[in-house]
């Protein structure tokens, strides 16, 4: 038996609450929980708390890997984000779904097996090794198109640049492992499997522990070409190239390799790009990073090489753009990755950029083998599609890959969210919007790579924000003009060292006061017009770490990305404006307790508590509860230490306690303390989001609402709405609506079988007619809006399996207004109540064919105090539920009360109409039954027919009756008129119009007139008719009672 309707009915304007489904833990969490099971606060408990993502998808995050295939003519696309996981489209790019949410989100390469489209290899760890690049954990494979994945080892390689497969055998593959970026390792090179990834053998090792495989291509003749690359990053430098770098070839499946040098210049080389012509395996192209960068071609499968050209695109940032493709049908048409893809039609002698408009920084390309006009391009702005070889492009703006660095909120209603993105500007959007937060709700404020952004609390039309390297500005949200306000050094002063991600902070005490940090801490109290230097150089000022003009290796690459010995985080105590914490990228933890007059570096006190010396301070959180308390995260990954370091001090930094228990994994970016419950902490690491309810002693990974193990860079608790806003670096902004239940969750609560948790007062938002879902088509991103119904949270120690679980909503008089089925998951559950009475009964119209849309929902109860009652078998728990009017409302309490009363009156009128109509139809049907039992010319039959006809006449006044073979008859009778009036009154929380009030009286009178006619028919005709029926030995006609149950007022 099934209660699944073949076509589920859904009211199109209604969005029921999201049900969080955490079907499985990320692998990392699983391993952790196995070793530290002590705390009952686990991922299973926390993951029931719903979160919603508002994107955006209007600007990308990097699409670092890409493959596509046509199956039965339909284009299936796999797009891999730099830190966004793998997303799949089966409709040519109109829609995508994430298919890798349980696993590492940094995607290095995707390879669909050419003979078996359901077999797909994914190498994790992006190979485009910019400063902010994430970390992978090995190779995965699916054999069912992405439904299930097997993790196949090579975990320590950290980055995989390419995977080549044998078209004749889906179990044979070669993995090109770039390896760790920040430390020496031999876990790199080319690995081969012949058993589908069960076992691996390294078939090509680097010449030294810095050299890994940066590109691997397999020609149609089976030859393998591997670009080996020596490279290393530190926090203050990058080095590309040197001994070990070179191009290698194997013609025996990887058993033996030969370095290819004939025709290449001598001297240090860096990163190669290599590509084999699909139409001719002897034609191979390579670009070579060197002091004289050039593109080379081989016509003999790599034996010898000839320089073709030196077009600019060939030398575009080799560490970022060493990638190249040859047209499937034209061996002379070459695409080279770069600031945009360069295309050559003359075998690489000359290049032009592809013409189509797209975000720059192009990394990966897919060319349709059968129709090379069709391209997909993965770039820093997302995924772009072209149907004319790149001449024109469209962005597939449905992938929420946005890589936020920071986020802040303001006090508008709904509050706005603003933050900066890796290579994708600074943006602002409402946290909620009718019909969902869509791409069009996001407004860009500033260009570049975006970082901190704060709405000026003294003037919400202005936003303080920055791009990379300390370009700090004040932007007008309405005019979008920018005043550049960064402090500039005066004569004789040392130059400011501005970090790539320059620290900016707002004072929590003095509204509008702003801090920015170079090596010095600066403060402005006049909107950036003037600045006060509050500190000496707070860093180690180590000159060895200040040589960025020499950074880059073979190719100098000196953006601000390696600027070091700078302030990275600033936190003024909300409890004491003179207490200011500063953390630096070179490991100093500086504290002033006198507003900057004197500073103390307390970093050594953290080192005493186990932190490796000099570890980068990634965030400091000054407690909102106690000026002596602070929390700090430390991130050593750029020095090869990926442990999550979180510490607390409760004595102004003299002693520190590590907070590393439970399920915490990944190097730590941010820690925040709740503004209400000091024991409630939130942490973001490179591999996810973590909660603690015991002041950091134990952490639980959040894996609900399909939240992946994505880097979490910043967190903020909204001080008014009590939401947690999460800035992910790869999956946009996520919002947890209402932390109140979590604040009440204690270890003692967790021991109970069932617990009803408190919630914030529900703000009753106005009903809106806005609905713009359909006309934008499916190719649109829409993040759920904030829940508009009253939210109820409860805790179940174990999944509810047997018996009853329901939630009732009760008014102040003790009447049950509504009953809602409860969700059943283990841990935190949340359900919603629409805050409405039952819908009024509506009579059927015509032959019962037309919905009375106005009357589909019941009257919306007025703000006030209600009670929630949770019933779980024999357990009954109650809690108050407070409903408040929207603070933006212009309606008085009395007006709202009058509106509610009027809505209820109309609902009751509709109810009366229904009962009367049903009674009338029933009497008529009884008459019909008797008519059928009487001969045609019978006198009694004629009486019954007259009775029936009289009733139908009245029915024609009560409801529409026309049957026109469709729903749109246009006929309006009492049912339609009352329904429409009720719907209009019920959808506006203020006073009904005078016209509406009058209309109700008119319709009420009209109804009474019709009802009286019905009664008169019964009185005048029925006694005689029933008497006559009795004479025919037929049952009398007994009308249904017409009593109406009044609604709650």
């Amino acid at each position, binding site marked *: *038996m*099934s*209660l699944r*309707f*073949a*076509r*589920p*009915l*859904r*009211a199109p*304007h*209604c969005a*029921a*609450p*999201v*049900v969080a489904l*955490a*079907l499985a833990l990320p692998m990392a969490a699983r391993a952790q929980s196995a070793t530290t099971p002590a705390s009952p606060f686990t991922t*299973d408990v926390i993951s029931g708390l719903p979160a919603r993502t508002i994107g955006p998808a209007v600007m990308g995050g990097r699409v670092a890997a890409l493959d596509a295939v046509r199956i039965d003519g339909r284009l299936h696309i796999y797009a891999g984000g730099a830190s966004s996981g793998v997303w799949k489209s*089966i409709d040519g790019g109109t829609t995508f*779904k994430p298919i890798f949410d349980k696993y590492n989100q940094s995607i290095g390469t995707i390879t669909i097996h050419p003979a078996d489209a359901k077999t797909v290899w994914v190498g994790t760890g992006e190979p485009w090794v910019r400063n902010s690049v994430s970390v992978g954990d090995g190779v995965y494979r699916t*054999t*069912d198109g992405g439904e299930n994945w*097997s*993790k196949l080892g090579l975990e320590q390689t950290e980055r995989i640049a390419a995977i080549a497969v044998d078209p004749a055998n889906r179990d044979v593959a070669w993995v090109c492992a770039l390896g760790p970026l920040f430390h020496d390792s031999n876990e790199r090179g080319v690995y081969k499997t012949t058993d*589908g990834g069960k076992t691996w053998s390294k078939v090509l090792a680097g010449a030294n522990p810095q050299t890994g495989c940066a590109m691997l291509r397999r020609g149609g003749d089976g030859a393998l070409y591997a670009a080996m690359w020596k490279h290393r990053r530190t926090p203050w430098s990058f080095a590309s190239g040197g001994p070990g770098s070179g191009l290698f070839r194997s013609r025996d499946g990887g058993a033996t390799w030969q370095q290819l040098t004939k025709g290449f210049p001598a001297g240090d080389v860096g990163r190669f790009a290599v590509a084999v012509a699909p139409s001719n395996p002897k034609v191979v192209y390579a670009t070579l990073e060197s002091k004289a960068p050039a593109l080379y071609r081989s016509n003999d499968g790599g034996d010898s090489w000839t320089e073709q050209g030196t077009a600019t695109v060939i030398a575009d940032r080799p560490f970022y753009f060493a990638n190249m493709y040859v047209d499937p049908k034209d061996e002379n048409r070459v695409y080279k990755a770069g600031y945009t893809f360069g295309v050559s039609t003359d075998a690489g002698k000359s290049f032009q950029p592809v013409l189509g408009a797209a975000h720059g920084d192009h990394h990966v390309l897919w060319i349709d083998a059968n129709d090379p006009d069709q391209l997909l391009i993965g770039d820093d702005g997302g995924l772009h599609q072209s149907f004319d070889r790149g001449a024109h492009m469209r962005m597939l703006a449905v992938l929420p890959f946005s890589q936020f660095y920071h986020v802040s909120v303001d006090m508008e209603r709904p509050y706005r969210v603003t933050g900066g993105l890796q290579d994708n500007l600074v943006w602002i959007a409402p946290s909620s919007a009718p019909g969902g937060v869509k791409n069009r709700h996001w407004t860009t404020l500033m260009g570049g790579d975006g970082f901190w952004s704060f709405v000026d609390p003294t003037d919400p039309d202005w936003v303080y924000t920055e791009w990379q390297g300390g370009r700090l500005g004040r932007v007008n949200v309405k005019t979008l003009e920018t005043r550049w306000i960064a402090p500039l050094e005066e004569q004789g002063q040392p130059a400011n060292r501005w970090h790539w991600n320059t620290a900016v902070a707002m004072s929590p005490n003095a509204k509008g006061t702003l801090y920015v940090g170079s090596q010095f801490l600066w403060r402005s109290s006049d909107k950036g017009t003037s600045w006060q230097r509050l500190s000496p150089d707070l860093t180690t000022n180590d000159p060895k770490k200040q040589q960025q003009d020499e950074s880059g290796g073979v190719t100098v690459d000196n953006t601000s990305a390696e600027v070091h010995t700078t302030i990275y985080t600033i936190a003024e105590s909300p409890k004491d404006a003179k207490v200011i914490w500063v953390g630096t990228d070179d490991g100093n933890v500086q504290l002033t307790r006198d507003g900057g007059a004197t500073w103390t570096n307390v970093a050594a006190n953290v080192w005493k508590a186990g932190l490796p010396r000099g570890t980068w301070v990634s965030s400091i959180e000054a407690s909102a509860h106690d000026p002596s308390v602070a929390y700090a995260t430390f991130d050593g990954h750029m020095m090869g230490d990926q442990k999550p370091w979180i510490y607390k001090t409760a004595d102004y930094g003299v002693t520190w306690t590590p907070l590393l228990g439970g399920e915490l994994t990944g190097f730590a970016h941010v820690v925040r303390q709740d503004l209400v419950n000091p024991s409630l902490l939130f942490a973001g690491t490179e591999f996810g989001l973590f909660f603690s309810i015991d002041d950091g002693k134990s952490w639980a990974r959040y894996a609900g609402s*399909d939240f992946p193990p994505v880097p979490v860079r910043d967190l903020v608790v909204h001080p008014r709405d009590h939401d947690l806003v999460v800035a992910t670096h790869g999956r946009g902004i996520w919002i947890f609506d209402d932390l109140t239940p979590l604040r009440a969750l204690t270890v003692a609560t967790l021991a109970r079988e069932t617990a009803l948790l408190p919630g914030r007062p529900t703000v009753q938002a106005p009903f809106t007619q806005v609905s713009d879902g359909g006309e934008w088509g499916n190719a649109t991103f829409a993040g759920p809006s904030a829940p508009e119904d009253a939210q109820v949270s409860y805790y179940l120690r*174990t*999944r*509810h*399996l*047997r*018996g*009853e*679980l329901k939630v009732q909503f009760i008014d102040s008089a003790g009447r049950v207004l*509504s009953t809602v*089925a409860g*969700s*059943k*998951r283990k841990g935190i559950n949340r359900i919603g109540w629409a*805050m*409405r009475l039952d819908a009024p*009964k*509506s*009579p059927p119209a*015509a*032959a*019962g*064919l*037309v*919905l*009375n849309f106005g009357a*589909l*929902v*019941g009257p919306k109860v007025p703000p006030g105090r209600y009670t929630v009652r949770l019933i779980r078998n024999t357990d009954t728990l109650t809690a108050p539920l407070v409903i408040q009017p929207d603070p933006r409302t212009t309606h008085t309490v009395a007006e709202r009360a009058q509106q509610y009363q009027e809505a209820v009156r109309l609902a009751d009128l509709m109810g009366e109409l*229904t009962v009367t109509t*049903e009674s009338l139809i029933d009497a008529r049907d009884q008459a019909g039954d008797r008519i059928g039992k009487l001969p045609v010319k019978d006198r009694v039959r004629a009486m019954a027919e007259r009775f029936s006809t009289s009733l139908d006449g009245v029915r024609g006044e009560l409801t529409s009756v026309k049957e026109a073979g*469709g*729903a*749109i008859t246009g006929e309006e009778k009492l049912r339609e008129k009352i329904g429409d009036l009720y719907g209009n009154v019920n959808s506006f929380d203020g006073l009904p119009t005078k016209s509406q009030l009058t209309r109700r009286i008119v319709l009420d009178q009209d109804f009474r007139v019709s009802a009286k006619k019905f009664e008169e028919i019964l009185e005048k005709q029925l006694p005689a008719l029933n008497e006559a029926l009795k004479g025919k030995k037929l049952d009398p006609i007994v009308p249904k009672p017409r009593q109406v149950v009044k609604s709650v007022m």
Partner: protein
Amino acid sequence: MRRSLFAAAAAAVLSLPAVAPAQTVDDVIAKYVEARGGLAKLKAITSLKAVGKMEVGPGIEAPIAMEQTRPANMRMEFTIQGMTAVQAYDGATAWAIVPFQGKKDPDVMPDDQAKSFIEGADFDGALVDWKAKGHTLTLLGKDKVEGSDAWKLKVNLKNGDERIVFLDADSYLEIRNEQKVKMQGTEMETFTNIGDYRDVNGTQMPFSIEQGAKGAPGVQRMTIEKYEANTPIDKTRFTMPKKAN
């Protein structure tokens, strides 16, 4: 209830995440049948009626009713504003009346819908007697459903569709069913969460069913108020009526 949504079928055995279940499919299914009350008690029920309600939107509820007889006859109804939508199958024809847009006559269900509905009509559900029904089951090991341990079974139905069924790891009762269905040639993914089991004629029946589409917000909740077993149901309830004209 979704015992009827359990499905099964023959299909290629894919290489799935490395799990080495200590139990076999037969072990798990035996415990599942036992958890439901055992084969004898299941087979002792020859007809079933249920009534309840379905939330079709915030604050919008519709009464629902279901009737079913062996081996695979089923009728389902839901009612809004006195208008009743019907879906039914009599072993030969799956049909529906959807009156909300001015149509009162029955129509034969499109094949996509019919397939799913007919699957649901299987009285005991696909997992009972799955071999005889021609389905294929693969035990994928243990997984988590909303934080709870569950046995994960892949069911390849004889009709070609695939289902993933999750049985509570302790009780072996079904708690979730994921469906991949083809609608107009395109695959859609839906799920059903099942719970609130109670005793009906010695068998465990779910009183709560939630349905949703993967990746879309919101679920549709159904609550059963009452089951009635072994009440005679006339065959005509399942047969497509003649059109009025």
